[in-house]
């Protein structure tokens, strides 16, 4: 029973672009053609003369009518740097990245608005721009924010365990560098919304592609200077999000446009706008030393990671926040003595930076996987051997990792073993040796990862808030509310399955409602769907079940302990024919309980109100500070062949073993795995946001930002382990990010293995054909030089 999916395949989706309101006007943004420039003047006269143009909104309007964007994450600590910029949703004085909106045209129809956008005359004084984090941190770099003394937004320093001891104990250390290029998560649907300001009630309703409506309401209300109670955000069908539709920013301009024009205003972002104005992700430079013993025992890490955050201005700390998990995650699933990690975030004249599947933890995990594989090579070990040597063992859970993560459960050796069973490792290694003689380059990559899921961090909007409501309506069907928007990750079917299993109800009668800002929660991000909202739904359903049992026992005149429910009926286990359908039960409980009504005890406890709202919070976070609650496990093995003469990588085989705890819906999980893996492959081999020398983005469409098509996507073999999490309500673990992390790591490792004959270190992504070929030629040149 896939109600939502059936609706969508039949073409009945209602996405942001499908929204229509009477009297609706359309908004189109005018962006900056410079990456860094002073705005000398904006003249809207010509645009306003075009018939159909209603209004042009500029940065001056934002200053006049709205508040600066609110702070979303703020960490002050002695010895740390944490800077925030004071900006509005559109600037009035200075543009800081290519495509940054400087004006918005509102017109009767979108075509007119687009046409008028070309007529808005803006005079700029171009400024030198900086487009690289390492350069931005040098004293001679142009400054992105005039009131900052340099471009360093963030500098965090962490000591986990005893890093000095780790290095004292070490037989060897190894220097490892690792670079990830800038990417775009790029759902096929860009962002869009319709804002409807109601002047009579001074209230604002916004419908659109909101991944986190509750947070959106908070931020838009703050910007608009309205009480949150007067603002409602409703998510419609969302055409993919992956984190990119969390932050509201341009939406503030749409809201203001509605208020200023008194019209419903629709904004549907053109795809090029979405590409250019972000959010973008990755773009990090790692450098560090890993300490280990000669027998392969891992001991410690001292490393620094520099993030190219782009501008800070739009999400007020949330980009910077991702440096926390980047620094913490390297501990991963292995045992360590200690780590010292510093995370630096530099601002540059590039679009802002935010969440995309992995958020920050992905960076630490990929770096450590790559580093461990280097250690294995140095010691002449296989990548699997070094992992088996250092894994946390199945009997050690819950495991207090040095980074404060309380890791819930798992069987790491079994996960990797399973993957190795699915790939004929010895066979492929022999084949690699054989092909090498013919000048062909086969590579086998191995990667294992955990997925820290369900983020809860203090001092930011990712604090771990969630609320769910499960109720039985008088017609005997179930209504489920939560903060978990459906972004294609199976939220609706998962929630329905959880509630259905607990209440013994057929999925056909469970209605998972679209998410609005009415329910508290930070939405589906950081794989928290199966942790926080799912736990809250399960908790509410369990409490509701108790109410049902009490009411049913009274109505059926049986003992509560004898009441059970299945297939839409509530019955006595002793006499199954003594039963009520949920429809009969609800009808009685709500309206017609019988001649004497319900038992007074039930009424005193309100148990006849078949409606439960529950909140949920991690059982481990409060005492330990573990910023995640569940840790799903995965192992990836990939076999690739690299065409040495062109640099093209072909994926020969791909296997993935996954342990997401108790499986709620296997098809959904498999789908998440497939999608994540292909996105990771895209990052590893094809995807790159490229800029010109003035920091203007060149990759602004699908024709020059290469996401994998059906041709590039390989077949994927999946196997599951099922080690329940003791910490979530259902035993399931948050999932969906491990696949993008593991696949990128494993493909790059496989490419490196394929190029082992050349001794090439693959520490830059994407490993595009040109880059791979460059590495080969450089190596050949060096070898020739040495000869």
């Amino acid at each position, binding site marked *: 029973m896939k109600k939502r999916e059936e609706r969508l395949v039949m073409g009945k989706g209602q996405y942001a672009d499908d929204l229509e309101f009477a009297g609706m006007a359309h908004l189109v943004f005018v962006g900056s053609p410079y990456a860094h420039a002073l705005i000398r003047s904006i003249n809207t006269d010509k645009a306003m003369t075009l018939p159909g143009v209603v209004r042009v909104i500029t940065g001056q309007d934002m200053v006049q009518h709205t508040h600066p964007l609110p702070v979303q994450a703020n960490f002050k600590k002695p010895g740390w740097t944490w800077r925030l910029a004071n900006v509005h949703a559109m600037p009035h004085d200075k543009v800081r990245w290519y495509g940054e909106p400087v004006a918005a045209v509102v017109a009767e129809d979108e075509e007119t608005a687009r046409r008028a956008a070309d007529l808005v005359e803006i005079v700029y004084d171009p400024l030198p721009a900086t487009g690289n984090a390492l350069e931005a941190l040098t004293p001679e770099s142009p400054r992105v924010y005039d009131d900052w003394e340099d471009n360093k937004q963030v500098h965090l320093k962490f000591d986990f365990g005893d890093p000095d001891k780790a290095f004292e104990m070490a037989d060897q250390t190894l220097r490892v560098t690792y670079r990830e290029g800038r990417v775009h998560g790029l759902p096929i*649907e860009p962002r869009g919304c319709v804002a409807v300001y109601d002047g009579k009630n001074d209230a604002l309703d916004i419908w659109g592609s909101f991944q986190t409506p509750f947070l959106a309401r908070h931020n838009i209300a703050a910007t608009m200077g309205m009480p949150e109670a007067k603002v409602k955000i409703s998510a419609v069908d969302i055409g993919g999000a992956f984190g990119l539709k969390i932050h509201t920013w341009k939406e503030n301009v749409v809201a203001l446009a509605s208020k200023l024009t008194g019209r419903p205003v629709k904004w549907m972002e053109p795809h090029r706008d979405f590409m250019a104005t972000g959010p973008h992700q990755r773009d990090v430079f790692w450098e560090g030393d890993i300490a280990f013993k000669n027998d392969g025992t891992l001991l410690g890490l001292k490393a620094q990671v520099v993030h190219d955050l782009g501008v800070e201005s739009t999400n007020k700390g949330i980009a910077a926040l991702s440096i926390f998990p980047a620094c913490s995650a390297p501990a991963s699933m292995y045992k360590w003595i200690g780590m010292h990690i510093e995370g630096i975030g530099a601002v540059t004249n590039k679009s802002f930076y935010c969440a995309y599947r992995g958020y920050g933890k992905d960076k630490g995990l990929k770096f450590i996987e790559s580093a461990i594989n280097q250690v294995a090579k140095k010691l002449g070990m296989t990548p699997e051997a070094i992992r088996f040597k250092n894994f946390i063992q199945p009997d050690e859970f819950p495991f207090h990792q040095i980074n404060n993560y309380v890791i819930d459960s798992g069987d790491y050796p079994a996960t990797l073993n399973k993957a190795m069973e699915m790939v004929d490792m010895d066979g492929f290694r022999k084949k690699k040796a054989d092909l090498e003689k013919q000048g062909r380059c086969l590579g086998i990559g191995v990667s294992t990862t955990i997925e820290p899921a369900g983020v809860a961090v203090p001092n930011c909007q990712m604090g771990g808030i969630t609320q769910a409501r499960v109720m039985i309506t008088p017609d005997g069907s179930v209504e489920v509310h939560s903060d978990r928007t459906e972004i294609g990750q199976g939220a609706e079917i998962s929630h329905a399955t959880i509630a259905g299993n607990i209440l013994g109800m057929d999925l056909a009668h469970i209605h998972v409602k679209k998410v609005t800002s009415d329910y508290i929660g930070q939405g589906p991000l950081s794989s928290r769907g199966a942790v926080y909202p799912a736990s809250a739904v399960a908790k509410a359903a369990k409490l509701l079940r108790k109410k049902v049992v009490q009411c049913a026992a009274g109505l059926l005149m049986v003992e509560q302990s004898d009441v059970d429910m299945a297939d839409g009926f509530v019955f006595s286990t002793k006499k199954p024919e003594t039963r009520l359908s949920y429809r009969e039960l609800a009808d009685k409980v709500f309206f017609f309980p019988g001649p004497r009504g319900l038992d007074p005890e039930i009424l005193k406890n309100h148990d006849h109100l078949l409606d439960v709202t529950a909140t949920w919070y991690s059982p481990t976070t409060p005492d330990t500070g573990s910023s995640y609650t569940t840790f799903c496990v995965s192992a990836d093995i990939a076999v690739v062949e690299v065409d040495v003469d062109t640099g093209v990588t072909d994926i020969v085989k791909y296997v993935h073993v996954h342990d997401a705890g108790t499986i709620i819906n296997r098809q959904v999980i498999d789908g998440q795995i497939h999608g994540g893996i292909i996105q990771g492959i895209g990052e590893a081999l094809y995807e790159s946001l490229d800029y010109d020398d003035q920091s203007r983005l060149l990759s602004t469409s699908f024709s020059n930002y290469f996401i994998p098509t059906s041709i590039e996507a390989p077949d994927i073999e999946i196997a599951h382990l099922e080690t329940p999490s003791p910490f979530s309500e259902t035993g399931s673990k948050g999932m969906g990010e491990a696949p993008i992390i593991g696949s990128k790591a494993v493909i790059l490792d496989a490419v490196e293995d394929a190029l082992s004959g050349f001794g090439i270190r693959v520490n830059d992504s994407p490993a595009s054909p040109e880059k791979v070929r460059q590495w080969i030629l450089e190596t050949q040149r060096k070898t020739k030089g040495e000869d």
Partner: protein
Amino acid sequence: MKIPLNLTINGDTVELTVDANETLLHVLRNSASLQSVHRSCEEGECGACTVLVNNEPVNSCLVLAVSVQGASVMTAEGLVRNNEPHPIMKAFTDELGIQCGFCTPGMLMTAYALINRCEGSELTDEFIRKSLQGNLCRCTGYVNIVKAVKKAKQNKDAGYWW
């Protein structure tokens, strides 16, 4: 310049008046209210707006509506019969060849044309993948989509089709 436009859309003859500069995508969404035709890149790269024109898949964002005067146009809405999902749609839900659903209607139209062309012949994974390369999907990794197309082909071979 307003131009009368006659089309057969999902089997119904319609007479519309359009501007010369309107794309077929715009006309289908705005004049014919067929919202399964999704708009994303508007430059013929993503395939979300794929419809069939005279049984061939095209990117409706790259077609001037007036240029297909008299043509037969088919969208996902046209595959639905008596409010029942078409067997190819059923295959996509059965195999979960859908996540966010945004690329799905376009993908379905390409796949539907593909299956109809392969009447009586086998449909290999490779050929399915080649045929769908103009329909970008960011969610599914295409794995379940390929499965769904094969399932749909089986549906057709078993006589479950319209």
